[in-house]
Protein backbone atom coordinates (compact mmCIF):
# COMPACT_ATOMS: atom_id res chain seq x y z
CA UNK A 1 0.00 0.00 0.00
CA UNK A 2 2.72 2.42 0.97
CA UNK A 3 4.72 1.72 -2.22
CA UNK A 4 1.64 2.44 -4.31
CA UNK A 5 1.17 5.78 -2.61
CA UNK A 6 4.75 6.74 -3.42
CA UNK A 7 4.22 6.00 -7.09
CA UNK A 8 1.18 8.23 -7.35
CA UNK A 9 2.46 11.72 -7.49
CA UNK A 10 0.09 14.68 -7.34
CA UNK A 11 -1.20 15.99 -10.66
CA UNK A 12 0.63 19.28 -10.33
CA UNK A 13 3.74 18.16 -8.48
CA UNK A 14 6.87 20.29 -8.62
CA UNK A 15 8.34 18.10 -11.37
CA UNK A 16 5.17 18.33 -13.45
CA UNK A 17 4.89 22.08 -13.02
CA UNK A 18 8.44 22.41 -14.18
CA UNK A 19 7.47 20.69 -17.43
CA UNK A 20 4.92 23.43 -17.92
CA UNK A 21 7.02 26.44 -16.94
CA UNK A 22 10.46 25.37 -18.17
CA UNK A 23 9.71 26.04 -21.83
CA UNK A 24 8.51 29.52 -20.96
CA UNK A 25 11.97 30.66 -20.00
CA UNK A 26 15.11 28.56 -19.59
CA UNK A 27 14.11 25.88 -22.07
CA UNK A 28 12.17 27.96 -24.54
CA UNK A 29 11.79 26.15 -27.86
CA UNK A 30 12.43 29.29 -29.94
CA UNK A 31 14.98 31.35 -28.05
CA UNK A 32 16.99 28.53 -26.47
CA UNK A 33 16.51 25.49 -28.69
CA UNK A 34 16.05 27.67 -31.79
CA UNK A 35 13.28 25.47 -33.22
CA UNK A 36 10.18 26.53 -35.09
CA UNK A 37 11.76 29.72 -36.40
CA UNK A 38 10.22 29.42 -39.87
CA UNK A 39 6.63 29.88 -38.81
CA UNK A 40 7.65 32.46 -36.23
CA UNK A 41 8.94 34.59 -39.10
CA UNK A 42 5.94 34.00 -41.30
CA UNK A 43 2.93 34.68 -39.09
CA UNK A 44 4.11 37.43 -36.75
CA UNK A 45 3.41 40.53 -38.83
CA UNK A 46 0.10 40.94 -36.95
CA UNK A 47 -1.06 39.93 -33.46
CA UNK A 48 -4.22 38.14 -34.51
CA UNK A 49 -2.76 35.45 -36.77
CA UNK A 50 0.12 35.04 -34.31
CA UNK A 51 -2.34 34.43 -31.49
CA UNK A 52 -4.35 31.88 -33.48
CA UNK A 53 -1.18 30.18 -34.62
CA UNK A 54 0.11 30.01 -31.05
CA UNK A 55 -3.16 28.48 -29.89
CA UNK A 56 -3.18 25.94 -32.73
CA UNK A 57 0.38 24.83 -32.12
CA UNK A 58 -0.25 24.52 -28.38
CA UNK A 59 -3.26 22.28 -28.98
CA UNK A 60 -1.37 20.12 -31.47
CA UNK A 61 1.77 19.74 -29.32
CA UNK A 62 -0.31 18.97 -26.22
CA UNK A 63 -2.56 16.35 -27.75
CA UNK A 64 0.00 14.73 -30.03
CA UNK A 65 2.25 14.27 -27.00
CA UNK A 66 -0.66 12.76 -25.10
CA UNK A 67 -1.63 10.34 -27.86
CA UNK A 68 1.91 9.24 -28.65
CA UNK A 69 2.63 8.74 -24.98
CA UNK A 70 -0.40 6.44 -24.72
CA UNK A 71 0.79 4.47 -27.72
CA UNK A 72 4.49 4.59 -26.90
CA UNK A 73 4.80 0.98 -25.77
CA UNK A 74 2.94 -0.33 -28.79
CA UNK A 75 4.81 1.55 -31.50
CA UNK A 76 7.51 -0.49 -33.25
CA UNK A 77 10.67 1.68 -33.14
CA UNK A 78 11.37 1.29 -36.86
CA UNK A 79 8.14 2.95 -37.97
CA UNK A 80 7.71 5.38 -35.09
CA UNK A 81 8.18 8.50 -37.21
CA UNK A 82 5.37 7.39 -39.53
CA UNK A 83 3.06 6.76 -36.60
CA UNK A 84 3.95 10.13 -35.09
CA UNK A 85 3.29 11.88 -38.38
CA UNK A 86 -0.09 10.23 -38.76
CA UNK A 87 -1.13 11.42 -35.30
CA UNK A 88 0.18 14.96 -35.87
CA UNK A 89 -1.38 15.17 -39.32
CA UNK A 90 -4.76 14.07 -38.00
CA UNK A 91 -4.63 16.74 -35.27
CA UNK A 92 -3.52 19.44 -37.69
CA UNK A 93 -6.37 18.63 -40.05
CA UNK A 94 -8.78 18.88 -37.13
CA UNK A 95 -7.37 22.27 -36.13
CA UNK A 96 -7.45 23.45 -39.72
CA UNK A 97 -11.11 22.50 -40.11
CA UNK A 98 -12.01 24.20 -36.82
CA UNK A 99 -10.25 27.40 -37.89
CA UNK A 100 -12.03 27.35 -41.24
CA UNK A 101 -15.35 26.85 -39.51
CA UNK A 102 -15.06 29.52 -36.81
CA UNK A 103 -12.40 32.10 -37.80
CA UNK A 104 -12.35 31.93 -41.56
CA UNK A 105 -10.59 35.25 -42.18
CA UNK A 106 -7.67 34.38 -39.90
CA UNK A 107 -7.50 30.95 -41.46
CA UNK A 108 -7.17 32.68 -44.83
CA UNK A 109 -4.31 34.85 -43.51
CA UNK A 110 -2.45 31.90 -42.03
CA UNK A 111 -3.01 30.06 -45.32
CA UNK A 112 -0.48 27.29 -45.75
CA UNK A 113 1.13 27.76 -42.35
CA UNK A 114 -1.60 25.86 -40.48
CA UNK A 115 -0.94 22.86 -42.67
CA UNK A 116 2.76 23.32 -42.12
CA UNK A 117 2.35 22.85 -38.36
CA UNK A 118 2.96 19.21 -39.27
CA UNK A 119 6.54 20.06 -40.14
CA UNK A 120 7.06 22.29 -37.10
CA UNK A 121 10.29 21.04 -35.58
CA UNK A 122 9.05 21.62 -32.03
CA UNK A 123 6.29 19.02 -32.35
CA UNK A 124 8.44 16.22 -33.71
CA UNK A 125 11.17 17.22 -31.27
CA UNK A 126 8.89 16.86 -28.25
CA UNK A 127 7.44 13.58 -29.50
CA UNK A 128 10.88 12.05 -30.02
CA UNK A 129 12.54 13.53 -26.98
CA UNK A 130 9.76 13.36 -24.42
CA UNK A 131 6.52 11.59 -25.29
CA UNK A 132 8.21 8.38 -26.44
CA UNK A 133 9.74 7.92 -23.00
CA UNK A 134 7.26 9.41 -20.52
CA UNK A 135 3.80 8.82 -19.13
CA UNK A 136 0.76 10.51 -20.72
CA UNK A 137 0.11 13.22 -18.13
CA UNK A 138 3.67 14.62 -17.94
CA UNK A 139 3.83 14.34 -21.74
CA UNK A 140 0.65 16.34 -22.10
CA UNK A 141 2.01 19.04 -19.77
CA UNK A 142 5.29 19.08 -21.65
CA UNK A 143 3.45 19.55 -24.94
CA UNK A 144 1.28 22.34 -23.58
CA UNK A 145 4.32 24.00 -21.98
CA UNK A 146 6.30 23.99 -25.21
CA UNK A 147 3.32 25.25 -27.16
CA UNK A 148 2.95 28.11 -24.69
CA UNK A 149 6.68 28.89 -24.82
CA UNK A 150 6.45 29.04 -28.60
CA UNK A 151 3.28 31.11 -28.47
CA UNK A 152 4.73 33.55 -25.97
CA UNK A 153 7.64 34.43 -28.25
CA UNK A 154 5.30 34.65 -31.22
CA UNK A 155 3.12 37.15 -29.41
CA UNK A 156 6.06 39.25 -28.21
CA UNK A 157 7.46 39.44 -31.75
CA UNK A 158 4.04 40.17 -33.22
CA UNK A 159 3.46 42.88 -30.60
CA UNK A 160 6.50 44.87 -31.71
CA UNK A 161 6.00 44.20 -35.39
CA UNK A 162 2.36 45.21 -35.45
CA UNK A 163 2.81 48.21 -33.15
CA UNK A 164 5.69 49.73 -35.10
CA UNK A 165 4.86 48.32 -38.52
CA UNK A 166 1.15 49.07 -38.66
CA UNK A 167 0.48 51.23 -35.60
CA UNK A 168 -2.20 48.79 -34.42
CA UNK A 169 -2.62 45.89 -31.98
CA UNK A 170 -5.10 43.10 -32.80
CA UNK A 171 -6.30 45.43 -35.53
CA UNK A 172 -7.11 48.34 -33.18
CA UNK A 173 -5.43 51.67 -33.86
CA UNK A 174 -2.91 52.33 -31.07
CA UNK A 175 -0.70 55.05 -32.52
CA UNK A 176 -2.86 58.21 -32.35
CA UNK A 177 -3.83 59.99 -35.54
CA UNK A 178 -2.25 63.23 -34.29
CA UNK A 179 1.18 61.59 -34.31
CA UNK A 180 0.80 60.82 -38.01
CA UNK A 181 -0.05 64.46 -38.63
CA UNK A 182 3.17 65.43 -36.90
CA UNK A 183 5.09 63.43 -39.50
CA UNK A 184 5.27 60.01 -37.90
CA UNK A 185 5.31 57.09 -40.32
CA UNK A 186 4.83 53.39 -39.81
CA UNK A 187 8.05 51.47 -40.15
CA UNK A 188 7.67 49.46 -43.36
CA UNK A 189 10.70 47.36 -42.49
CA UNK A 190 8.89 45.88 -39.47
CA UNK A 191 6.40 44.14 -41.75
CA UNK A 192 9.15 42.51 -43.81
CA UNK A 193 10.36 39.07 -42.61
CA UNK A 194 13.96 40.18 -41.82
CA UNK A 195 12.70 42.26 -38.90
CA UNK A 196 11.04 39.18 -37.38
CA UNK A 197 14.43 37.52 -37.37
CA UNK A 198 16.09 40.58 -35.86
CA UNK A 199 13.35 40.87 -33.22
CA UNK A 200 13.80 37.23 -32.22
CA UNK A 201 17.55 37.82 -32.15
CA UNK A 202 17.03 40.76 -29.83
CA UNK A 203 14.83 38.68 -27.51
CA UNK A 204 17.57 36.03 -27.39
CA UNK A 205 20.12 38.78 -26.67
CA UNK A 206 18.05 40.20 -23.79
CA UNK A 207 17.35 36.75 -22.35
CA UNK A 208 21.02 35.81 -22.36
CA UNK A 209 21.99 39.09 -20.79
CA UNK A 210 19.90 38.16 -17.76
CA UNK A 211 20.50 34.39 -17.79
CA UNK A 212 24.19 34.15 -18.40
CA UNK A 213 24.13 30.35 -17.94
CA UNK A 214 22.54 30.12 -21.41
CA UNK A 215 25.59 31.56 -23.17
CA UNK A 216 27.54 28.88 -25.01
CA UNK A 217 31.23 28.67 -24.28
Amino acid sequence: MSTKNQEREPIFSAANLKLLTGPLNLNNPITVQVLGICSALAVTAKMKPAFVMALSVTVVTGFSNLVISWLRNGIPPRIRIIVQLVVVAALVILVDQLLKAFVFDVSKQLSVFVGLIITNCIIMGRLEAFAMANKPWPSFLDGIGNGLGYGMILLIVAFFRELFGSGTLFGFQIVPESLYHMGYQNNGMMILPPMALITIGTIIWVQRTFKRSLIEK
Partner: protein
Amino acid sequence: MKALRNYLDKQRPKFREGGKFAKLESTFDAFDTFLFVPNTVTKSGAHIRDAVDMKRTMMFVIFALIPALLFGTWNIGYEHYLSYGQTAGFWPNFVYGLGKIVPLIIVSYVVGLGIEFIFAQIRHEEVNEGYLVTGLLIPLIVPPDLPLWELAVGVAFAVLFGKEVFGGTGMNVFNPALIARAFIFFAYPSSMSGSKVWIADKLDSFSGATPLGKLLTNTAPTLNHLGLPSVHDMFFGYMPGSIGETSTFWILIGGLFLLITGVANWRTMLSVFAGGYLMGLIFNLWGANAYMSLPAWQHFIMGGFAFGAVFMATDPVTSAQTKKGKYIYGFFIGMMAILIRVINPAYPEGVMLAILLANVFAPLIDYFVVKANVKKRLKRVELAVNQK
Protein backbone atom coordinates in the same frame (compact mmCIF):
# COMPACT_ATOMS: atom_id res chain seq x y z
CA MET B 1 47.97 73.28 -24.21
CA LYS B 2 50.14 72.34 -21.29
CA ALA B 3 47.51 73.49 -18.82
CA LEU B 4 44.95 71.25 -20.47
CA ARG B 5 47.33 68.30 -20.31
CA ASN B 6 47.97 68.90 -16.63
CA TYR B 7 44.28 69.26 -15.94
CA LEU B 8 43.51 65.95 -17.65
CA ASP B 9 46.29 64.19 -15.76
CA LYS B 10 44.92 65.54 -12.50
CA GLN B 11 41.44 64.28 -13.32
CA ARG B 12 42.54 60.83 -14.41
CA PRO B 13 42.56 59.08 -10.98
CA LYS B 14 38.92 59.99 -10.48
CA PHE B 15 38.04 57.87 -13.53
CA ARG B 16 40.15 54.87 -12.57
CA GLU B 17 39.02 51.92 -10.44
CA GLY B 18 37.73 53.15 -7.10
CA GLY B 19 37.48 56.74 -8.25
CA LYS B 20 34.36 58.86 -8.15
CA PHE B 21 33.53 58.40 -11.83
CA ALA B 22 34.99 54.91 -12.39
CA LYS B 23 31.94 54.05 -14.50
CA LEU B 24 32.87 56.74 -17.02
CA GLU B 25 36.42 55.51 -17.53
CA SER B 26 36.12 54.88 -21.25
CA THR B 27 34.38 58.22 -21.82
CA PHE B 28 37.31 59.98 -20.17
CA ASP B 29 39.85 58.02 -22.19
CA ALA B 30 37.99 58.79 -25.39
CA PHE B 31 38.19 62.54 -24.82
CA ASP B 32 41.77 62.30 -23.59
CA THR B 33 43.01 60.50 -26.71
CA PHE B 34 40.84 62.70 -28.90
CA LEU B 35 42.66 65.79 -27.63
CA PHE B 36 46.17 64.36 -27.32
CA VAL B 37 47.99 61.63 -29.18
CA PRO B 38 48.37 58.83 -26.62
CA ASN B 39 51.96 57.98 -25.76
CA THR B 40 51.39 54.28 -25.28
CA VAL B 41 53.56 52.13 -27.54
CA THR B 42 52.99 48.59 -28.73
CA LYS B 43 55.47 46.44 -26.80
CA SER B 44 54.99 42.89 -28.03
CA GLY B 45 54.78 41.21 -31.41
CA ALA B 46 55.96 42.40 -34.77
CA HIS B 47 54.81 45.89 -35.67
CA ILE B 48 55.61 48.74 -38.01
CA ARG B 49 56.62 52.16 -36.68
CA ASP B 50 54.25 54.62 -38.22
CA ALA B 51 52.63 57.88 -37.23
CA VAL B 52 49.32 56.72 -38.65
CA ASP B 53 47.01 55.27 -36.03
CA MET B 54 43.30 54.65 -36.36
CA LYS B 55 42.34 58.19 -35.38
CA ARG B 56 44.64 59.63 -38.04
CA THR B 57 43.24 57.26 -40.69
CA MET B 58 39.72 58.30 -39.82
CA MET B 59 40.65 61.97 -39.98
CA PHE B 60 42.04 61.47 -43.50
CA VAL B 61 38.73 60.00 -44.64
CA ILE B 62 36.92 62.98 -43.14
CA PHE B 63 39.22 65.38 -45.03
CA ALA B 64 38.51 63.44 -48.21
CA LEU B 65 34.79 63.82 -47.66
CA ILE B 66 34.96 67.60 -47.26
CA PRO B 67 34.91 68.53 -51.00
CA ALA B 68 31.80 66.41 -51.60
CA LEU B 69 30.26 67.75 -48.39
CA LEU B 70 30.80 71.40 -49.28
CA PHE B 71 29.56 70.94 -52.83
CA GLY B 72 26.55 68.98 -51.58
CA THR B 73 25.70 71.76 -49.14
CA TRP B 74 25.78 74.33 -51.94
CA ASN B 75 23.83 72.05 -54.25
CA ILE B 76 20.95 71.70 -51.77
CA GLY B 77 20.38 75.44 -52.00
CA TYR B 78 21.01 75.58 -55.74
CA GLU B 79 18.44 72.86 -56.52
CA HIS B 80 15.94 74.37 -54.11
CA TYR B 81 16.03 77.82 -55.71
CA LEU B 82 16.12 76.25 -59.18
CA SER B 83 12.82 74.46 -58.51
CA TYR B 84 11.28 77.91 -57.95
CA GLY B 85 12.85 79.17 -61.15
CA GLN B 86 15.28 81.40 -59.29
CA THR B 87 19.04 81.56 -59.34
CA ALA B 88 20.54 82.71 -56.08
CA GLY B 89 24.14 83.70 -55.45
CA PHE B 90 26.76 81.45 -53.95
CA TRP B 91 26.15 82.44 -50.33
CA PRO B 92 22.33 82.16 -50.26
CA ASN B 93 22.63 78.70 -51.79
CA PHE B 94 25.29 77.67 -49.35
CA VAL B 95 23.54 79.05 -46.28
CA TYR B 96 20.27 77.41 -47.29
CA GLY B 97 22.15 74.12 -47.66
CA LEU B 98 23.78 74.55 -44.26
CA GLY B 99 20.34 74.90 -42.71
CA LYS B 100 19.49 71.47 -44.10
CA ILE B 101 22.68 69.54 -43.59
CA VAL B 102 23.86 70.75 -40.18
CA PRO B 103 20.85 69.25 -38.32
CA LEU B 104 21.36 65.97 -40.19
CA ILE B 105 25.03 65.83 -39.19
CA ILE B 106 24.29 66.74 -35.57
CA VAL B 107 21.57 64.10 -35.23
CA SER B 108 23.76 61.47 -36.86
CA TYR B 109 26.69 62.14 -34.52
CA VAL B 110 24.67 62.58 -31.32
CA VAL B 111 22.65 59.39 -31.76
CA GLY B 112 25.50 57.27 -33.11
CA LEU B 113 28.17 58.39 -30.69
CA GLY B 114 25.66 58.24 -27.82
CA ILE B 115 25.05 54.55 -28.46
CA GLU B 116 28.78 53.90 -28.97
CA PHE B 117 29.63 55.55 -25.65
CA ILE B 118 26.93 53.65 -23.77
CA PHE B 119 28.18 50.34 -25.15
CA ALA B 120 31.79 51.18 -24.37
CA GLN B 121 30.83 51.91 -20.75
CA ILE B 122 28.84 48.71 -20.36
CA ARG B 123 31.57 46.57 -21.87
CA HIS B 124 34.43 48.48 -20.22
CA GLU B 125 36.09 49.01 -23.55
CA GLU B 126 37.65 52.02 -25.17
CA VAL B 127 35.38 54.13 -27.33
CA ASN B 128 36.34 53.52 -30.94
CA GLU B 129 36.90 56.18 -33.57
CA GLY B 130 35.09 54.29 -36.31
CA TYR B 131 31.90 56.24 -35.91
CA LEU B 132 33.54 59.57 -36.71
CA VAL B 133 33.56 58.60 -40.38
CA THR B 134 30.28 56.69 -40.40
CA GLY B 135 28.57 59.64 -38.75
CA LEU B 136 29.59 61.93 -41.59
CA LEU B 137 28.94 59.38 -44.34
CA ILE B 138 25.32 58.83 -43.33
CA PRO B 139 24.13 62.45 -43.85
CA LEU B 140 25.87 62.49 -47.23
CA ILE B 141 23.95 59.50 -48.60
CA VAL B 142 20.43 60.58 -47.65
CA PRO B 143 18.10 63.09 -49.33
CA PRO B 144 18.23 66.64 -47.91
CA ASP B 145 14.65 66.64 -46.60
CA LEU B 146 14.84 63.39 -44.66
CA PRO B 147 12.93 63.83 -41.35
CA LEU B 148 15.45 63.95 -38.52
CA TRP B 149 13.69 61.33 -36.40
CA GLU B 150 13.83 58.87 -39.30
CA LEU B 151 17.55 59.50 -39.57
CA ALA B 152 17.89 58.94 -35.83
CA VAL B 153 16.06 55.60 -36.02
CA GLY B 154 18.19 54.53 -38.97
CA VAL B 155 21.43 55.50 -37.24
CA ALA B 156 20.42 53.74 -34.03
CA PHE B 157 19.58 50.60 -35.97
CA ALA B 158 22.83 50.71 -37.91
CA VAL B 159 25.03 51.19 -34.86
CA LEU B 160 23.18 48.57 -32.80
CA PHE B 161 22.59 45.85 -35.37
CA GLY B 162 25.18 46.73 -37.99
CA LYS B 163 28.03 47.17 -35.58
CA GLU B 164 27.65 46.59 -31.84
CA VAL B 165 26.11 43.11 -32.04
CA PHE B 166 29.14 42.01 -34.02
CA GLY B 167 31.50 43.43 -31.41
CA GLY B 168 32.06 47.06 -32.45
CA THR B 169 34.48 48.80 -34.78
CA GLY B 170 36.53 46.42 -36.88
CA MET B 171 34.25 43.43 -36.28
CA ASN B 172 31.27 44.43 -38.38
CA VAL B 173 30.28 42.39 -41.41
CA PHE B 174 28.37 45.20 -43.13
CA ASN B 175 29.21 48.80 -43.76
CA PRO B 176 27.25 50.58 -40.98
CA ALA B 177 26.57 53.70 -43.06
CA LEU B 178 24.96 51.59 -45.76
CA ILE B 179 22.99 49.64 -43.15
CA ALA B 180 21.55 52.95 -41.98
CA ARG B 181 20.64 53.93 -45.52
CA ALA B 182 19.19 50.52 -46.33
CA PHE B 183 17.12 50.57 -43.15
CA ILE B 184 15.65 53.99 -43.86
CA PHE B 185 15.12 53.00 -47.48
CA PHE B 186 13.04 49.94 -46.60
CA ALA B 187 11.38 51.32 -43.47
CA TYR B 188 10.33 54.73 -44.77
CA PRO B 189 10.29 54.39 -48.57
CA SER B 190 8.25 57.55 -49.05
CA SER B 191 11.08 59.66 -47.56
CA MET B 192 13.81 57.89 -49.46
CA SER B 193 12.67 57.10 -52.99
CA GLY B 194 10.55 58.45 -55.79
CA SER B 195 10.85 61.83 -57.45
CA LYS B 196 9.66 64.07 -54.60
CA VAL B 197 12.38 63.82 -52.00
CA TRP B 198 15.62 64.74 -53.75
CA ILE B 199 15.21 68.52 -53.70
CA ALA B 200 14.72 70.34 -50.40
CA ASP B 201 11.23 71.95 -50.11
CA LYS B 202 10.77 71.97 -53.85
CA LEU B 203 7.85 73.52 -55.66
CA ASP B 204 5.20 70.81 -56.10
CA SER B 205 4.85 71.32 -59.81
CA PHE B 206 8.58 70.96 -60.42
CA SER B 207 9.75 67.48 -61.37
CA GLY B 208 12.50 66.48 -59.00
CA ALA B 209 13.27 63.12 -60.53
CA THR B 210 16.91 62.05 -60.53
CA PRO B 211 18.46 60.93 -63.83
CA LEU B 212 18.30 57.33 -62.65
CA GLY B 213 14.63 57.68 -61.76
CA LYS B 214 13.87 59.08 -65.19
CA LEU B 215 15.84 56.33 -66.90
CA LEU B 216 14.09 53.55 -65.03
CA THR B 217 10.56 54.79 -65.72
CA ASN B 218 11.31 55.48 -69.38
CA THR B 219 9.34 53.27 -71.77
CA ALA B 220 10.11 55.07 -75.03
CA PRO B 221 12.63 53.53 -77.45
CA THR B 222 15.05 56.48 -77.10
CA LEU B 223 16.36 58.57 -74.24
CA ASN B 224 16.24 61.91 -76.06
CA HIS B 225 13.00 63.27 -74.62
CA LEU B 226 13.91 62.47 -71.00
CA GLY B 227 15.66 65.76 -70.43
CA LEU B 228 18.61 64.27 -68.63
CA PRO B 229 21.14 66.83 -67.37
CA SER B 230 24.08 67.34 -69.69
CA VAL B 231 27.19 65.24 -69.16
CA HIS B 232 28.96 68.31 -67.80
CA ASP B 233 26.19 68.93 -65.25
CA MET B 234 26.09 65.31 -64.14
CA PHE B 235 29.87 65.10 -63.79
CA PHE B 236 30.08 68.24 -61.68
CA GLY B 237 26.91 67.39 -59.80
CA TYR B 238 24.34 70.03 -60.72
CA MET B 239 21.42 67.63 -60.34
CA PRO B 240 19.05 66.44 -57.59
CA GLY B 241 20.13 63.45 -55.54
CA SER B 242 21.47 62.33 -52.17
CA ILE B 243 23.40 65.19 -50.59
CA GLY B 244 26.99 64.11 -51.12
CA GLU B 245 26.58 61.78 -54.06
CA THR B 246 25.81 64.08 -56.98
CA SER B 247 29.22 65.48 -57.85
CA THR B 248 31.52 62.85 -59.34
CA PHE B 249 34.22 65.51 -59.76
CA TRP B 250 34.50 66.46 -56.08
CA ILE B 251 34.19 62.83 -55.00
CA LEU B 252 37.13 61.94 -57.23
CA ILE B 253 39.17 64.78 -55.72
CA GLY B 254 38.52 63.22 -52.30
CA GLY B 255 39.30 59.80 -53.73
CA LEU B 256 42.63 61.06 -55.06
CA PHE B 257 43.50 62.31 -51.59
CA LEU B 258 42.63 58.89 -50.12
CA LEU B 259 44.81 57.14 -52.69
CA ILE B 260 47.79 59.47 -52.16
CA THR B 261 47.66 59.06 -48.38
CA GLY B 262 47.24 55.31 -48.82
CA VAL B 263 44.07 55.14 -46.77
CA ALA B 264 41.91 53.62 -49.49
CA ASN B 265 42.97 50.79 -51.72
CA TRP B 266 43.29 51.54 -55.43
CA ARG B 267 42.61 47.93 -56.38
CA THR B 268 39.10 48.00 -54.96
CA MET B 269 38.34 51.43 -56.38
CA LEU B 270 39.61 50.60 -59.85
CA SER B 271 37.87 47.26 -60.07
CA VAL B 272 34.50 48.74 -59.04
CA PHE B 273 34.71 51.09 -62.01
CA ALA B 274 35.97 48.29 -64.25
CA GLY B 275 33.13 46.00 -63.20
CA GLY B 276 30.55 48.71 -63.77
CA TYR B 277 32.01 49.54 -67.17
CA LEU B 278 32.00 45.92 -68.27
CA MET B 279 28.39 45.45 -67.19
CA GLY B 280 27.49 48.63 -69.05
CA LEU B 281 29.13 47.25 -72.20
CA ILE B 282 27.29 43.95 -71.83
CA PHE B 283 24.01 45.85 -71.68
CA ASN B 284 25.07 47.87 -74.74
CA LEU B 285 25.48 44.61 -76.63
CA TRP B 286 22.21 43.23 -75.34
CA GLY B 287 20.33 46.45 -76.07
CA ALA B 288 16.81 45.18 -75.25
CA ASN B 289 15.57 48.67 -74.32
CA ALA B 290 16.65 52.29 -74.38
CA TYR B 291 18.19 52.16 -70.88
CA MET B 292 20.55 49.36 -71.93
CA SER B 293 21.88 51.44 -74.80
CA LEU B 294 23.12 54.14 -72.40
CA PRO B 295 26.89 54.59 -72.91
CA ALA B 296 28.63 52.50 -70.27
CA TRP B 297 30.74 55.31 -68.86
CA GLN B 298 27.66 57.46 -68.21
CA HIS B 299 26.73 55.16 -65.34
CA PHE B 300 29.69 56.53 -63.39
CA ILE B 301 28.39 60.08 -63.24
CA MET B 302 24.86 59.23 -62.15
CA GLY B 303 23.50 58.20 -58.78
CA GLY B 304 25.81 57.01 -56.06
CA PHE B 305 28.22 55.02 -58.17
CA ALA B 306 31.31 57.19 -57.68
CA PHE B 307 30.55 57.79 -54.00
CA GLY B 308 30.06 54.07 -53.42
CA ALA B 309 33.26 53.16 -55.27
CA VAL B 310 35.42 55.75 -53.51
CA PHE B 311 34.09 55.83 -49.95
CA MET B 312 31.96 52.73 -49.37
CA ALA B 313 33.57 49.85 -51.24
CA THR B 314 37.02 50.77 -49.94
CA ASP B 315 36.02 50.50 -46.26
CA PRO B 316 38.96 48.46 -44.90
CA VAL B 317 36.82 46.49 -42.44
CA THR B 318 34.10 45.16 -44.70
CA SER B 319 35.96 44.75 -47.99
CA ALA B 320 38.07 41.76 -48.97
CA GLN B 321 41.53 41.72 -47.36
CA THR B 322 43.68 39.93 -49.95
CA LYS B 323 45.03 41.68 -53.03
CA LYS B 324 43.39 39.36 -55.52
CA GLY B 325 40.28 39.31 -53.37
CA LYS B 326 40.02 43.09 -53.64
CA TYR B 327 39.88 42.86 -57.44
CA ILE B 328 37.15 40.24 -57.32
CA TYR B 329 35.26 42.10 -54.60
CA GLY B 330 35.31 45.42 -56.45
CA PHE B 331 34.46 43.84 -59.77
CA PHE B 332 31.47 42.10 -58.21
CA ILE B 333 30.22 45.39 -56.74
CA GLY B 334 30.50 47.23 -60.04
CA MET B 335 28.70 44.55 -62.02
CA MET B 336 25.93 44.04 -59.47
CA ALA B 337 25.34 47.78 -59.10
CA ILE B 338 24.70 48.29 -62.81
CA LEU B 339 22.75 45.04 -63.06
CA ILE B 340 20.34 46.11 -60.29
CA ARG B 341 20.05 49.61 -61.77
CA VAL B 342 19.07 48.50 -65.23
CA ILE B 343 17.18 45.26 -64.65
CA ASN B 344 15.36 45.62 -61.31
CA PRO B 345 12.24 47.74 -61.71
CA ALA B 346 11.90 48.38 -57.94
CA TYR B 347 15.31 49.94 -57.26
CA PRO B 348 16.54 52.82 -59.44
CA GLU B 349 19.92 52.73 -57.68
CA GLY B 350 21.78 49.51 -57.03
CA VAL B 351 25.09 50.61 -55.54
CA MET B 352 23.94 50.39 -51.91
CA LEU B 353 22.52 46.89 -52.33
CA ALA B 354 25.50 45.73 -54.41
CA ILE B 355 28.01 46.78 -51.75
CA LEU B 356 25.99 45.23 -48.92
CA LEU B 357 25.77 42.01 -50.90
CA ALA B 358 29.50 42.05 -51.61
CA ASN B 359 30.19 42.64 -47.88
CA VAL B 360 28.61 39.24 -47.22
CA PHE B 361 30.85 37.54 -49.77
CA ALA B 362 34.10 39.31 -48.83
CA PRO B 363 35.27 36.68 -46.29
CA LEU B 364 34.39 33.89 -48.74
CA ILE B 365 36.40 35.58 -51.49
CA ASP B 366 39.38 35.89 -49.15
CA TYR B 367 39.03 32.25 -48.15
CA PHE B 368 39.26 31.04 -51.73
CA VAL B 369 42.14 33.38 -52.57
CA VAL B 370 44.13 32.09 -49.59
CA LYS B 371 43.24 28.47 -50.44
CA ALA B 372 44.41 28.96 -54.03
CA ASN B 373 47.67 30.40 -52.77
CA VAL B 374 48.22 27.48 -50.41
CA LYS B 375 47.60 25.08 -53.27
CA LYS B 376 50.07 26.88 -55.52
CA ARG B 377 52.80 26.85 -52.91
CA LEU B 378 52.18 23.20 -52.06
CA LYS B 379 52.78 22.36 -55.70
CA ARG B 380 56.07 24.24 -55.54
CA VAL B 381 57.09 22.24 -52.47
CA GLU B 382 56.21 18.98 -54.18
CA LEU B 383 58.28 19.99 -57.19
CA ALA B 384 61.26 20.81 -55.01
CA VAL B 385 60.97 17.51 -53.12
CA ASN B 386 60.68 15.50 -56.31
CA GLN B 387 63.76 17.13 -57.81
CA LYS B 388 65.81 15.97 -54.87
